[in-house]
């Protein structure tokens, strides 16, 4: 699949945004994070900012963005529509929560209810995003039991890393959050490795034989229907060399998991402001790593339509 930057950025940013939003909602609402105006303001701005720029970036992928509103209508069948609905619906408790927690400096009570709703909305939205990909049968690498958990884990991971950075920069570092970030990152790493392992061994029943209905033996493409690349090939015929993808996998692991893990362990021991700077660095590194991961998520995904073009 063609890794369009708008989509790569969209899933990375909203994943992190909803992860952070969920943590702020749940932990802030229940009072585990103090209701500090600036902390709350920056935190909510960061979370919503990521979400909004992500969503806006995704509309950059649309052919007719001015009609984007229509996407809310098909929630009964379409995960994309559900994502739209869930993402927008989450803004309602998010607004209430923001008023209560950030402006009024409250936690507990209705603010807690709003916060938990925010968290639920965020999780739901991330689930719907994951399901968009997980439900696509023509792309075996996505249509797997690894995809949905990956979205949730990565949201939790990037969200908690951001939450940690946020708290650290306000010198409010919590070892629970820190531990959560560390564990989630470890979890993310394990999950990513497991996913890659799964995908690398994937035996896909769909092949050039089933695609053409020509049973048995080999089916080789000798001529395309058109000389130049068309939409299908540009959108779905993306190929990445094995060598290239191995390198990018190493970069992903370094930036998204190794650097964050090492730094997070250091944060446990480092004093402020070093801990804050390290935490910020973790967030930046991981975000960059996740962009690469997401890019690979697309680049390594093979759509069945490529079978028709002899691109395995």
């Amino acid at each position, binding site marked *: 699949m063609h890794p369009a930057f708008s989509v790569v950025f969209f899933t990375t940013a909203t994943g992190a945004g909803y992860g952070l939003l969920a943590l702020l909602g749940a932990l802030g609402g229940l009072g585990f994070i103090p209701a500090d105006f600036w902390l709350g303001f920056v935190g909510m701005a960061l979370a919503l900012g990521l979400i909004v720029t992500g969503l806006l970036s995704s509309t950059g992928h649309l052919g007719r963005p001015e009609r984007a509103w229509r996407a809310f209508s098909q929630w009964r069948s379409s995960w994309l529509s559900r994502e739209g609905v869930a993402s927008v619906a989450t803004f309602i408790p998010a607004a209430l929560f923001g008023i209560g927690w950030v402006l009024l400096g409250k936690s507990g009570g209705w603010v807690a209810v709003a916060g938990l709703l925010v968290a639920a909305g965020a999780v739901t939205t991330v689930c719907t995003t994951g399901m968009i990909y997980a439900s696509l049968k023509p792309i075996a690498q996505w249509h797997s039991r690894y995809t949905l958990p990956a979205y949730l884990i990565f949201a939790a991971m990037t969200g908690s890393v951001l939450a940690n950075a946020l708290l650290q920069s306000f010198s409010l570092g919590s070892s629970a959050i820190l531990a959560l970030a560390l564990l989630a990152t470890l979890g993310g790493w394990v999950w990513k490795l497991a996913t890659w392992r799964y995908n690398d061994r994937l035996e896909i029943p769909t092949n050039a034989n089933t695609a053409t209905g020509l049973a048995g033996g080999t089916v*080789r493409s*000798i*001529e395309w*229907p*058109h*000389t*130049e690349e068309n939409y299908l090939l540009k959108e779905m015929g993306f190929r990445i060399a094995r060598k290239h993808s191995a390198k990018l996998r190493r970069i992903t692991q370094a930036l998204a998991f190794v650097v964050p893990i090492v730094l997070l362990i250091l944060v446990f021991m480092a004093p402020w402001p070093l801990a804050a700077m390290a935490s910020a660095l973790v967030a930046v590194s991981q975000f960059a790593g996740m962009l690469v991961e997401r890019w690979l998520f697309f680049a390594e995904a093979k759509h069945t339509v490529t079978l028709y073009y002899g691109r395995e």
Partner: protein
Amino acid sequence: MSKAAPRGANSAPSQRPLSDTHAPNEGDGVETSPSVSDRIAKTTCYMCACRCGIDVHIKDGKVRYINGNKDHPVNRGVICGKGSAGIMQHYSPARLKKPLLRTGPRGSGEFREIEWDEALTIATERLSAIRRTDPKKLAFFTGRDQSQSLTGWWASKFGTPNFAAHGGFCSVNMAAGGLYTIGGSFWEFGEPDWDNTRYFMLFGVAEDHDSNPIKIGLGKLKARGAKVVSINPCRTGYNAIADDWIGIRPGSDGLFVLALVHELLKAGRVDLDYLLRYTNAPVLVVQEPGSADDGLFVRDSDGNSLAWDRVAKQPVSAAAPEAKPALTGSHEVGGRRCVPVFQLIADRYLDDSYSPDAVAQRCGVSADTIRRIAAELAHVAFEQAIELPIPWTDWAGRRHETIKGRPVSMHAMRGISAHSNGFHTCRAIHLLQVLLGTVDVPGGFRFKPPYPRCAPPGPKPCGKNAQPMTPLDGMPLGFVCGPDDLLVDEAGRPVRIDKAYSWEAPLAAHGLMHTVIRNAWAGDPYPIDTLFMYMSNMAWNSSMNTAETIAMLTDKDEAGAYKIPFIIYSDAYYSETVPFADLVLPDTTYLERHDCISLLDRPISHADGAADAIRHPVVQPDRDVRPFQSVLIELGARLGLPGFVEEDGSATYRDYADHIVNHQRTPGIGPLAGWRGKDGGSIGKGDVNPDQLQRYIDNGGFWHHEFADGQRYYKMGNRAYLDFAVEIGFIAKAEPIVFQLYSEPIQRFRLAARGHGKMQPPDADRGRIEAYMDPLPFWYAPFEDDTVDLEKYPLHALTQRPMHMYHSWGSQNAWLRQITSQNRLFVHRQTASKLGLADDDWVWIESVNGRVKGQIKLIDGVNPDTVWTWNAIGKRHGSWGLKDNAAESNRGFLLNHIIGDQTSADANGKRYSNSDPVTGQAAWFDVRVRITKCSADEAGFTEPQFERFARPPHFESSPDILRFGAEFRVNREAAE
């Protein structure tokens, strides 16, 4: 099923409309009944030379949609990939807009626009000077147009013998091979009996002139489960769907076919009755080596050829119906030893050199396969013979209650013809067909009227003594029956610029267009003044050795004058040849003009009926262009050519439409056969009918006469058919047409080579005439096989026509070029691996004639010693309205660069044109090559490259985006 009666080709129950075609009540707002067109104009397609009937739907003044005409005898409602893309041809950005006069150097593409009057004045002055002095200094050559009956007539009236159309580089081997043998031919003059055949052999065809008819026919065979055998080095297209694909080595079909003949003879599986009735198998041939009549037929004093009556034990006229001729033995007649033709056939082909084992390796086909095919042929021909319950009467008046047939049919085209041994290979295939008794029988190969004709047909080529201001005494092209008919001077030198009908190409029935540029440049046999060409891209894909051809077009003498002094060219588009013209006459598109698809030319008849057709303007030109034929008629009038002017000097014809209706070739016979006579009541012959064109238009653009059942088969000897053919003017006499398995005209040339007769070949040509003018078909290796180092050039290189492209002119088509804008060289997987080549590699393709660069694609379905590519995809920068980065000129390549236009020098140092020695047919497919991987910095782009042509004035740059059709929707929705 549908209430609609099944009509046209695609009318199987599973291809008809729904039983209820009322739109269901879906409620989704879809307009299921939009209006399609304001009017439908029925005319004839010209996206290729197949000439299908089309319905052009015009909406809001533009062409909305083109589909096949269901009533049309050629395509019966279907349409091919090109035909449906006609819109994009008609609106092509490469269309010429106005007459052009060259301003820059030849080949630069620098022109200025001029008015038509100036253009015609320039042409008239030039041509009139030629006509007054030496008319053969005009060489008038036309491409795949369909107006040769007009253009040939014009040349004849002008008085130049130097006229031909494209047939010489196309398929004259097939035309001549057939016409000299069976009086008809594959090409467009015959077709398999698609409805009855059970075994179909297809030799060397990728697409053919009969584009849709062959496809419709193959569909029928498939639907019936008839067996399709393809003999072709390449397994694509038609050959892909064959039940049996025989990936023969190029140039060896003659051997393969004669091995089949060997097997059939050996097993006694030939149709003796058929041979006796319809062929010259029993005719006695003089066997007196050294004498002047050796190898000629024994004739009586009336000139009738004789046979040996095996009952009366004496010679009889071979045509006598009651005779009982012998097919074998040696006899004596009038003191001359003689044997029947058939004895010669048996003697030759029963020889072990024609056995499957002897030929297998050379053909790349196992001996077992050859034996199997022979057995299958015999089995289907003789054990599955069919009989149609249709009474008929043969030429001798014998009535038959049924029509018997042998359901084996064959078709062959350029894979046979485009080799230097193609004429004899084509004859070998006809021999095989005739031995099996399958020509013009149910289930076999059938003639399309006006064929069959006498083998060879009537008129001889004219123009031996062209004189100033004098028309020729006939048409420039025709059929020679011996050395006396050649167009050579006393010294044996060619009279024609293309050397057709000379000792170098005696049976050149279609001329040799591919030699004109070289000969004119070299002044061999003489220099010319003006080269006048129409509709052929001679500076590119229809020339061999293209780079050198281009150089000849631009070469100058010491005085700085072009060696070919003046070039006039008519094209409709900005092709690679336009920039080489000094004067360009821009033509209309096929939807903007009248055309005539005439029985006098290359007809659209089919085996069950005669047909002809017209084109008429269905839209008006939006540019200052004129139909070429009308321009030619005006030129004729301005030159005062007889037949083009009245006594008072006024023009006889207003334009081509006027000519089509009013011209009479001989009294009562004109370009169109339908609705003749004042009231339109007669066919074939009859007075001029002023309403004729309208009658055609009213009938969908064509005329069609279906034969009565008893006229459809055995046309060579069918009384009812022959009488009809005379009545309508196809043939002069209702005499049976005898298949010439042994060709006496050809033997006459051989006798000349042996020193007999007053017409003697120059010594340099004597050996060639002796070797190749063999009265019976034989096989020899294609010339290049014998002259190049096969270790060095081990591979054969072929081209095939893509079904969706017509030669060079498809690439300007926005739709068609998307399908193929780069041609690959297809290489067998094993061959590539031996050469260390991988898929997508860039390679040099080298022959003795040069090298060209392209990208390879590996396949399995090709003879391992053969590489091939799609024809005419490579384009020159600046042509066809294509942008500079178009794949056609950057990655596509033209194989023609490496196909030599001459043979290597022989022992006398003489080089001939790279053609069949009998007919002059261009030997495109003889070329031998090697392929080697390019270096890394050479990969990615094709070579050779040529300077980019300038754009003619007022050419806008081609659009970056095409939204064709959007306007119909907007208008439709606005109207709702």
